[in-house]
């Protein structure tokens, strides 16, 4: 038996994935659509391997009653693991049906073909198809992974830019969990515990009835129920909860530098030999706390009846959430059904899980009443997990030519992985809340979280790093697009430019001196050619060209980004080029969309974003406090995909984040003759750095 990809190894039964019914193929998968187009790309893979038209696929993703458990939709693995699994499932199913048809027709499977589900012999219909044969071919069997998928030369659907299957419904005004209703549904919102450990002292319950609202409460978990959204908002205002035992963080805790003053769990990896003697260069880079800032606040529906709790949610993983909810509610996971529904763009662990748990708890407190929870925008900013602040220091020992021969990194960061049971917001307010163990996060280089991409993809003979994992962040943190790779790549790629500068070598040429891997070299060379890099002028002219490169997780998608900026007292983006290597692009336009999205989100992060903290906790409460990049600030973006269709497909949603942030800082340094090492690269930062 071959090594099956994780999703298939965990869910080997073929009937868990596929069912043939009345001219349709029912496909159930665990990887869910979170705005990245995965439902379309996976459908292409299934249709390709089964030889059916795309419109025959009836799709269901993320459902604990129906779909395989593929964990979370995260880490750019949905194509690499989910897609690889589905491909094998469909290839094996197709082979089973062909074998059965061959037996009935007394011929060899090789003599048969499938055209839109119909089985052909020498190009003519045989009277058999998937649906007529389905009663004879049992899929109640485990996959072996031995049926070879189609060779690329035979692909007709994979590799084409098929249109997104979910967009028409969304543009027609439906399709999100926010748009769902259940008969008799009641609107609810939790009175959010302002700080961990705060206790609810009083609620103005008398004021609620005026709005047709009421309070449900269990320990410090308190929620208002009302007949409509406007009534609910008014009732939440009127409830005026008073909380005791709130700590009061200070504004300086919002800065990455504050983390370095805190106790940390210290882990080291890499070379145990001390760095050799020689000239050194050292610099520290940082990013503050970042909001996912999904455009719609988190939402969920839940309904408890007859001992079954059903939850509709936009979480990344319905099974992990079910486990989490079961533990918090102290009940059998089998008594909970979790169904995924579309939500606003998800760039990691946002408030979706918390809102789903809110709805689940409230539903169990009022059995028989369907509950809808929609967070306020202020709660979304204040209480959904943030991407952690982080600081990365790099120190290189250089050879005679100024090239690094030894690299020491020190990462100081809050956690990037924080979804374990008991860690969702509502859990800690219930009467049975258990004390939490310290957050667990691996410090290994792969896949890494805070340490992601800290091991350079460049040819640097020796490296070591220290990971200072700080549990006591002022606000709750968890996974945000790219995790630690954003800051680590930002640091490494800015650092390389500093080293190149010091050595008097052009930064692109300097990178190529250190890159022997052919796909990486090709990417950097193409990006330089596209952006007319060779015409790059001297530093300090007010316009600048900067580059950033990384291979995400050192194993996934490759991206090289070049940015041209204009900079004086602020930085304006003029143009962006990106070369990327995704291996086989299942949906090339989908890959481009993911690259564009990553570039724009990273540019917004690098230039503008920071969550503020005051004595109440997160001080950022609205879009007015959290500017993001707008249309007029986004320059033309040219993307070139490398033609490597014989390489396995790679996830591309996160690979541009670090390279983009670094390219902007490098371009700004080139334009200004001034190195900015701390995101966001705002006017204040420029002034402050210039003064030093």
């Amino acid at each position, binding site marked *: 038996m071959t090594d099956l990809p994780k999703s298939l190894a965990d869910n080997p039964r073929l009937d868990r994935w596929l069912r043939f019914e009345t001219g349709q193929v029912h496909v159930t998968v665990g990887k869910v659509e979170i*705005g990245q187009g995965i439902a379309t790309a996976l459908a292409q893979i299934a249709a390709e391997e089964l030889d059916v038209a795309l419109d025959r696929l009836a799709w269901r993703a993320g459902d604990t009653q129906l779909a395989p458990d593929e964990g979370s939709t995260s880490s750019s693995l949905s194509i690499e693991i989910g897609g690889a699994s589905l491909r094998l499932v469909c290839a094996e199913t197709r082979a089973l049906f062909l074998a059965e048809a061959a037996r009935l027709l007394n011929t060899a499977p090789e003599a048969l073909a499938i055209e839109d589900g119909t089985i052909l012999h020498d190009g003519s219909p045989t009277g058999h198809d998937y649906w007529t044969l389905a009663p004879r071919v049992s899929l109640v069997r485990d996959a072996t992974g031995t049926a070879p998928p189609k060779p690329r030369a035979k692909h007709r659907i994979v590799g084409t830019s098929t249109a997104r299957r979910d*967009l028409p419904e969304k*543009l027609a005004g439906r399709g999100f969990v926010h748009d769902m209703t259940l008969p008799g549904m009641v609107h609810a919102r939790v009175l959010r515990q302002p700080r961990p450990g705060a206790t609810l002292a009083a609620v103005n319950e008398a004021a609620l009835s005026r709005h047709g609202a009421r309070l449900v409460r269990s320990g410090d978990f308190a929620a208002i129920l009302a007949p409509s959204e*406007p009534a609910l908002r008014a009732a939440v205002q009127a409830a005026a909860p008073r909380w005791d035992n709130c700590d009061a963080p200070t504004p300086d805790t919002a800065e990455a530098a504050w983390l370095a003053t805190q106790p940390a769990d210290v882990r080291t990896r890499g070379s145990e030999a001390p760095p050799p003697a020689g000239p050194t260069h050292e610099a520290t880079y940082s990013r503050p706390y970042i909001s996912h800032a999904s*455009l719609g606040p988190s939402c969920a529906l839940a309904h408890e009846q007859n001992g079954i709790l059903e939850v509709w949610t936009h979480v990344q993983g319905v099974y992990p959430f079910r486990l989490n909810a079961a533990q918090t509610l102290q009940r059998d996971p089998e008594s909970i059904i979790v169904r995924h529904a579309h939500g606003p763009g998800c760039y990691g662990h946002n408030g979706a899980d918390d809102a789903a748990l809110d709805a689940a708890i409230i539903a169990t407190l009022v059995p028989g009443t369907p509950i809808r929870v929609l967070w306020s925008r202020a709660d979304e900013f204040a209480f959904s997990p943030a991407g952690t602040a982080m600081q990365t220091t790099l120190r290189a020992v250089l050879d005679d030519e100024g090239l690094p021969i030894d690299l020491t990194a020190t990462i100081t960061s809050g956690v990037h992985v924080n979804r374990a049971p008991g860690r969702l917001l509502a859990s800690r307010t219930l009467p049975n809340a258990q004390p939490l163990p310290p957050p667990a996060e691996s410090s290994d280089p792969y896949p890494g979280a805070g340490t992601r991409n800290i091991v350079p993809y460049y040819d640097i003979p020796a490296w070591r790093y220290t990971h200072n994992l700080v549990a006591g962040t002022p606000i709750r943190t968890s996974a945000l697009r790219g995790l630690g790779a954003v800051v680590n790549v930002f640091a490494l790629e800015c650092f390389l430019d500093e080293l190149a500068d010091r050595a008097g070598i052009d930064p692109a040429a300097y990178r190529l001196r250190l890159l022997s891997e052919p796909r990486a070299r090709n990417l950097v060379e193409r990006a330089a050619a596209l952006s007319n890099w060779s015409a790059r002028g001297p530093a300090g002219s007010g316009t600048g060209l900067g580059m950033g490169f990384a291979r995400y997780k050192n194993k996934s998608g490759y991206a090289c980004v070049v940015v041209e900026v204009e900079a004086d007292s602020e930085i304006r983006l003029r143009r962006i080029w990106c070369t990327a290597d995704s291996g086989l692009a299942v949906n090339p336009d989908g890959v481009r969309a993911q690259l564009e999205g990553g570039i724009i989100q990273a540019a917004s992060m690098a230039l503008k974003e920071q969550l503020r903290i005051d004595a109440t906790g997160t001080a950022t409460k*609205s*879009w007015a406090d959290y500017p993001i990049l707008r249309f*007029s600030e986004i320059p*033309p973006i040219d993307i070139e995909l490398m033609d490597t269709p014989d390489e396995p497909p790679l996830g591309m949603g996160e690979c541009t984040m670090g390279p983009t942030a670094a390219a902007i800082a490098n371009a700004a340094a080139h334009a200004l003759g001034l190195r900015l090492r701390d995101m966001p690269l705002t006017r204040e930062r420029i002034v402050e750095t210039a003064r030093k």
Partner: protein
Amino acid sequence: MTVLIVNRTPRDSASPATTPLLDVLRGEFRLTGSRFGCGEEQCGACLVLVDGAPVQSCGREIGTLGGRAVTTIEGLQDHPIVAALIAEQAGQCGYCLSGMAVAAAALLARTPTPSRAEIAAALDPQLCRCGAHPRILRAVERASQEMAR
């Protein structure tokens, strides 16, 4: 009771006059295309047309809208911008797209052939978090060309 003309059809709302239009559209009329993004007139996800002018429906009380014509994304399904947004695959999560379509329709009604800069300026109040901006800009240009035919 307030009478609104929603997508050319008169509708009676039983909601109090101070109720935001967005709540009436989504909650009472079950027209869910206008999205709740912030409730503070800061993101544009709830944008609708009132007598042809773009209005953030989360901030407009229905009492001010008696007899006025409200157009939502549901009423723009035949507008070329909808097909153009799909043709350009101009959405990732799609949550912002209703507002984008409405903003674009308002722009194209007053400026049939806008420049790229005019489109960007008109869409600047509309937030998109997925980074679909370049595609949305192209979609507005495409719709403009389509309408000029």
